[in-house]
């Protein structure tokens, strides 16, 4: 194939020499003041590659720019807990469960991708959260999923639901992670915005906790896992089309495709690497790929890192440097390794058929420098990319309809006037898809693998055994109720926590910590922002009262179609610990003649 002469590479030197060259910052989702700030930070215009990195790292998804002023409360109001080994802010929090064991758990959304391509969207959602847990040093041991779909009888639900369920099952089953619970709720408000929230829990010994930071000048940066392809780089294509025009081979896919087998190898390989103590820092690849992994590793360490993009193994040789930096190809990890441990690291990767390549090293300085074809195309303070993104104080306004909605109490509903009408009402209630048996979903998930599942569907909480000798275990529940939260976001978030907490407590486990996924509409709508702020306040307050800190979570905004947002849907996961899983309490009545008590009023 003959390609037209390429325009010059947009190197740092080139950018310095061409300050006036127009750049597609707006198309990449940056606001004018954000672009101006980038120019100030760098003292020149950014190169194309730098612009790509900033735009993706400063996006809502990666920077939490609309939400972080509210999320702060989870840290500020956090009740003291001796169990917290690693707090909020890392990939995932780590909780001490005794006997030298620690667990890490987190819930994350993959809502929009699951609407576009249900199977792959849901599958890669599971893949992403599992890598997050792995990157903390933990062996992933179970997953859960919280799902919201539109009306059960809507034709598009028929497209989305089976794909999502098959995707979660297909990926989780292939990784060998038992699915120990979740929820499935139908409501027309999710028609164009289904919610796919996946939770993963991992287990480790205290001494195995690993953090994402690159320290130690001369240490090597190793990229391992899948080759990098053109997945999920819609944004970078804007830059690519600017520089390459019609020389592009084909449209870049915005859909990421998962390879659970590759991920399974990545897990086993990474755990073996941890066992031999071969890494000083590790980071999974999530959204924003290499941009994110390198800038976060460098920023959390001493700051300096040099990376050679030519060494990144590619699946598609036509990728531009911007695209390589932004690619969201799945099943990749990045590790920082002392030079004398590199050989052993690579040998373990070879054992597991995992491709591993040294792509750079930690340097003395405090700049992240990236080279391509021998030329410098990125030279930035990594913290400015990874952590100093914009913070917005978006306007909030309690929606005008809130009072009316709250006034519309069940008292206004007509009561069934006859026994027959009562019967029909009851039938309608139990016949609703939300109440129905979910085994047609849960039977597609492996709940037995690993042989430690003590409770799973149809129980209200999942429970797994951690230590076979002592019987130490953990219980987990994942709950949310968008209808309650719409009625009153403050109380609704608290109710989600309370439900989850009760479910865990009822198994006999002691609730210890919380993770949450906050699914809301557009932050640009003051009514949505109000819902969001109220839900955060409610959850933080309730966590304080119950003594269970939030250890991590995820925010998903822009879940709306046109002007109509989904019901505000905070989904809350509670983790509890039980010293001996033999003593768990299942939901079913087991013994004839048992007495039944009602607690509470």
């Amino acid at each position, binding site marked *: 194939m003959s390609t037209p002469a390429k325009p010059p590479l947009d190197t740092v030197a080139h950018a310095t020499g061409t300050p006036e060259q127009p750049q597609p910052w707006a198309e990449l989702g940056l606001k004018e003041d954000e672009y101006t700030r980038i120019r100030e930070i760098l003292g020149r215009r950014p190169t194309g590659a730098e612009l790509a990195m900033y735009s993706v790292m400063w996006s809502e998804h990666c920077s939490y720019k609309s939400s972080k002023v509210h999320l702060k409360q989870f840290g500020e109001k956090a009740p003291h807990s001796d169990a917290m080994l690693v707090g909020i802010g890392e990939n995932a929090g780590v909780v001490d469960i005794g006997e030298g064991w620690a667990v890490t758990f987190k819930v994350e959304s993959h809502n929009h991708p699951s609407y576009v391509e249900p199977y792959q969207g849901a599958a890669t959602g599971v893949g992403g959260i599992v890598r997050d847990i792995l990157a903390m040093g933990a062996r992933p041991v179970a997953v859960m999923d919280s799902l919201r779909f539109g009306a059960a009888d809507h034709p598009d639900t028929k497209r989305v639901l089976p794909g999502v369920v098959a995707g979660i099952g297909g990926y989780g*089953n292939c990784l060998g992670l038992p699915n120990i619970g979740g929820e499935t709720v139908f409501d027309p408000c999710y028609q164009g915005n289904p919610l796919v929230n996946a939770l993963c829990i991992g287990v480790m010994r205290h001494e195995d906790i690993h953090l994402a930071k690159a320290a130690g000048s001369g240490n090597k940066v190793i990229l391992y896992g899948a080759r990098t392809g053109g997945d999920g780089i819609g944004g970078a294509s804007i830059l690519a089309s600017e520089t390459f025009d019609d020389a592009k081979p084909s449209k870049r896919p915005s859909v990421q495709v998962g390879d659970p087998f590759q991920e399974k190898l990545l897990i086993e390989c990474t755990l073996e690497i941890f066992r031999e103590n071969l890494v000083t820092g590790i980071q999974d690849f999530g959204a924003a790929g290499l941009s994110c992994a390198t800038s976060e590793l460098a920023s959390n360490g001493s700051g300096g890192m040099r990376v050679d993009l030519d060494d990144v193994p590619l699946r598609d040789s036509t990728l531009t440097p911007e695209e390589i930096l932004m690619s969201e190809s799945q099943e990749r990890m990045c590790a920082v390794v002392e030079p004398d441990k590199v050989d052993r690291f690579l040998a373990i990767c070879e054992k597991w058929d995992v491709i591993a390549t040294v792509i750079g090293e930690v340097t003395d300085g405090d700049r992240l420098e990236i080279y391509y074809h021998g030329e410098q195309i990125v030279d930035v303070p990594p913290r400015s990319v990874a952590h100093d993104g914009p913070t917005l104080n978006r306007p909030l306004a309690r929606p005008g309809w809130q009072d009316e909605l709250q006034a519309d109490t069940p008292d206004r509903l007509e009561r069934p006037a006859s026994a027959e009408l009562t019967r029909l009402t009851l039938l309608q209630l139990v016949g609703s898809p939300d109440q129905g048996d979910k085994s047609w979903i849960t039977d597609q998930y492996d709940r037995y693998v690993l042989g430690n599942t003590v409770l799973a569907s149809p129980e209200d909480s999942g429970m797994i055994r951690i230590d076979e000798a002592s019987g130490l275990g953990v219980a987990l529940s994942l709950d949310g109720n968008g209808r309650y939260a719409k009625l009153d976001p403050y109380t609704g978030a608290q109710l989600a926590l309370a439900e989850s907490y009760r479910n865990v407590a009822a198994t006999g486990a002691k609730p210890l910590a919380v993770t949450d996924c906050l699914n809301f509409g557009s932050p640009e709508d003051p009514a949505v922002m109000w819902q969001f702020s109220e839900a955060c306040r409610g959850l933080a307050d309730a966590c304080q009262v119950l003594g269970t800190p939030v250890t991590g979570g995820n925010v998903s905004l822009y879940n709306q179609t046109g002007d109509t947002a989904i019901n505000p849907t905070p989904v809350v996961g509670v983790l509890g610990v039980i010293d001996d899983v033999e003593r768990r309490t299942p939901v079913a009545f087991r013994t004839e003649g048992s007495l039944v008590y009602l607690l509470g009023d």
Partner: protein
Amino acid sequence: MTARVGVVTFPGSLDDGDARRAVRLAGGEPVALWHRDTDLHQVDAVVLPGGFSYGDYLRCGAIARFSPIMENIIAGAREGMPVLGICNGFQILCESHLLPGALTRNDHLHFVCRDQKLRIENAGTAWTSDYEAGQEITVPLKNGEGGYVADERTLDELEAEGRVVARYLELNPNGSRRDIAGISNAAGNVVGLMPHPEHAVEPLTGPTTEGLGFFTSILKRLVTAR
């Protein structure tokens, strides 16, 4: 004096740990075998565990069948070494032609995980002698491609020779011909089974402990053979 039972780990094996646990709970010594090795480490029997070896890409078991370790396992099996293939292991045994037929996509096209009732049809194999013929047991079943198929002649032959080891009861979960859940080779040392007895060995984590019999059967046989 106990017996050494090897459990092979292929890339993508998932139930290898569970199979080793089952061997241990039955009183045996589990030995982890690695797919790239050729050495069987003097094991007396081998379990090919469940999972998605090589991602189940191409066909379930098709790539694993060519792993270096399979060469000695196939040779050993032909000489009478007991081999149990569970789920993915069953698929590997069919792909290796140690067992006839093949496992195809479930007729309903979904992955299915359920507590499955079975009848042990043949209590004379190396792996089922601790059961009574006709005994009904419940163990977990979980697969996406568990539909057993073979041509009519082969199916008739399996029936006539008593080589149907276990049959599904009450519900055929995957469209298997003649409700077949497991079969053996003519000598009875090689058994392939779709359901997972290794997940039914502890009251805490399994629906029953009725899967343990597969592992106690082989241990008794190996220990008495000494």
